[in-house]
């Protein structure tokens, strides 16, 4: 495990985990919230938590003290492991360095327990919660580990972590690397210059990231005439479109692309490696297996054996039940393709419009670095389609010409889908490396 400032071999990491686990035991910390910047030590702390059968949860590091206090109150956390001083009523704040084993602790005599052995070990993943307060999806560590496919060929691979640890995908990436005894690199931040630097400096072989992240990385690499020698590209978390797959092929010729489907609630459920958008219809309506899929009213539903156990304080969803994913799909021939999130659908005068389909067209216009399509309230049609475009830094395109080129490209779309407003911006709002496309609220 490596970051710009620190690295841990597996043997050292195992000792640190044992040390931290003893420390947690000595301090009688059984449930704790983590409020730290993503770093190798955070991962070791989570492993220690799982070893002692603790309940762990990683909070967004951008949360304010008030938000952390609220989380602690709602989820009943009495301990926070923080990298800054924190003062919250009825909550004890610890630094990692406080977790000291008792004096008689003898590293050499201690049998090191295996990750996930303890059936009580839980990890709570917070939902992104763009509306309202986040919910906590409770997982058994053993379920999280059961989702990981162990592959001998992964052992020599160096992965770069392109997700935050407070999200499911971060946990999943961490476990994929750990369970396969691979190397995991953490960049200083998920900004493209830091990512590209870490990828080159640590000879990263594989990155798993969102389409939004990959679009940015491809554009960054192209505009800096940089080369990354990746051997494995994994995409997930948002709808993957053919234009993205083509872009990846241009940027990383011949590198196999895996598309994974995962969610905070269901975990990592299936992956496709055939290089085409969507997944085969044959995966639907199977009556056996750890993961089952079906389409109800155009929405993908999943039932997964190793899904979350349920939400904290809410018994409405439980493990082994069908779960509506919020992802809209369409069946095209022998393929199930993703149209986008249900919550992102734009209603233009009664016609439902999917942002992803429009973004797909605009992303192919030369000079476009990134685009986000969303709905804006309108007195005439309810909502109208707005495209916010970031022009590539090396492009000479002027806004006027770019606007004309985008409109011209959008003529292939149904009239209701054509963006009626095109705005040029310097960056786009993202959450966990995904574009935020929810319609703007009525003001």
């Amino acid at each position, binding site marked *: 495990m490596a970051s710009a400032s620190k690295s841990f071999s597996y043997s050292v990491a195992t000792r640190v985990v044992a040390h931290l686990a003893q420390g947690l035991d000595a301090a009688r910390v059984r449930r704790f919230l983590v409020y730290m910047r993503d770093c190798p030590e955070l991962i070791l702390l989570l492993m220690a938590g799982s070893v002692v059968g603790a309940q762990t949860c990683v909070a967004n590091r951008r949360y304010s003290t008030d938000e952390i206090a609220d989380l602690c109150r709602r989820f009943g956390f009495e301990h926070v492991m923080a990298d800054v001083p924190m003062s919250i009523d009825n909550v004890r704040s610890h630094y990692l360095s406080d977790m000291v084993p008792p004096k008689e602790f003898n590293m050499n005599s201690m049998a090191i327990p295996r990750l996930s052995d303890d059936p009580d070990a839980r990890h709570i993943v917070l939902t992104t919660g763009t509306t309202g307060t986040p919910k906590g999806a409770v997982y058994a560590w053993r379920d999280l580990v059961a989702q990981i496919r162990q592959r001998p060929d992964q052992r020599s691979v160096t992965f770069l972590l392109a997700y935050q640890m407070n999200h499911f995908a971060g946990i999943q990436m961490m476990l994929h690397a750990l369970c396969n005894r691979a190397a995991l690199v953490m960049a200083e931040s998920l900004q493209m210059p830091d990512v590209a630097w870490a990828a080159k400096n640590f000879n990263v072989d594989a990155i798993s990231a969102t389409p939004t992240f990959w679009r940015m990385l491809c554009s960054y690499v192209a505009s800096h005439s940089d080369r990354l020698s990746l051997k494995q590209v994994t995409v997930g978390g948002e709808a993957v479109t053919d234009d993205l797959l083509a872009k990846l092929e241009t940027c990383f010729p011949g590198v196999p692309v895996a598309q994974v489907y995962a969610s905070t609630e269901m975990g990592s459920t299936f992956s496709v490696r055939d290089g085409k958008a969507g997944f085969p219809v044959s995966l639907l309506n199977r009556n056996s297996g750890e993961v089952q899929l079906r389409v109800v009213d155009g929405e993908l539903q999943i039932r997964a054996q190793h899904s979350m156990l349920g939400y904290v304080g809410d018994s409405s969803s439980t493990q082994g039940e069908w779960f509506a994913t919020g992802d809209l799909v369409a069946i095209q021939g022998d393929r199930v393709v993703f149209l986008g999130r249900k919550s992102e659908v734009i209603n233009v005068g009664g016609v439902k419009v999917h942002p992803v389909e429009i973004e797909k067209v605009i992303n192919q216009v030369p000079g476009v670095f990134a685009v986000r399509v969303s709905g*804006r309230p309108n007195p*005439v049609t309810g909502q109208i389609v707005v495209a916010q475009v970031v022009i590539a830094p090396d492009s000479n395109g002027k806004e006027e010409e770019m606007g004309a080129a985008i409109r011209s490209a959008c*003529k292939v779309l149904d009239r209701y889908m*054509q963006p009626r*407003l095109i705005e040029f911006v310097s960056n786009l709002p993202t959450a966990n490396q995904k574009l935020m496309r929810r319609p703007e609220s009525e003001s």
Partner: protein
Amino acid sequence: MDGVAETIYQIIRQVIRYRDSEADGVHVSDATRLYEAPDGLGLDSLEIAALSAGLEGRFGHDPYTAGVFPQTFGELVSYYSAGKT
């Protein structure tokens, strides 16, 4: 055309840019009807929606959101001219 009328004229030109026919050739006068065709601009609901958004973006408010439905170019211009004074 004065400043306000010219600004609104430019917004209308932007609004109809998706049309196949040339947007450059469009001519308006105060009497030009906004929604009828072929004797007017023939703006449909999507174009009116875009016009509303364009006006809102430029002036900070627009007649359609306020519940006013100007019928001619002149009425639209005077909506803003009246508000200005």
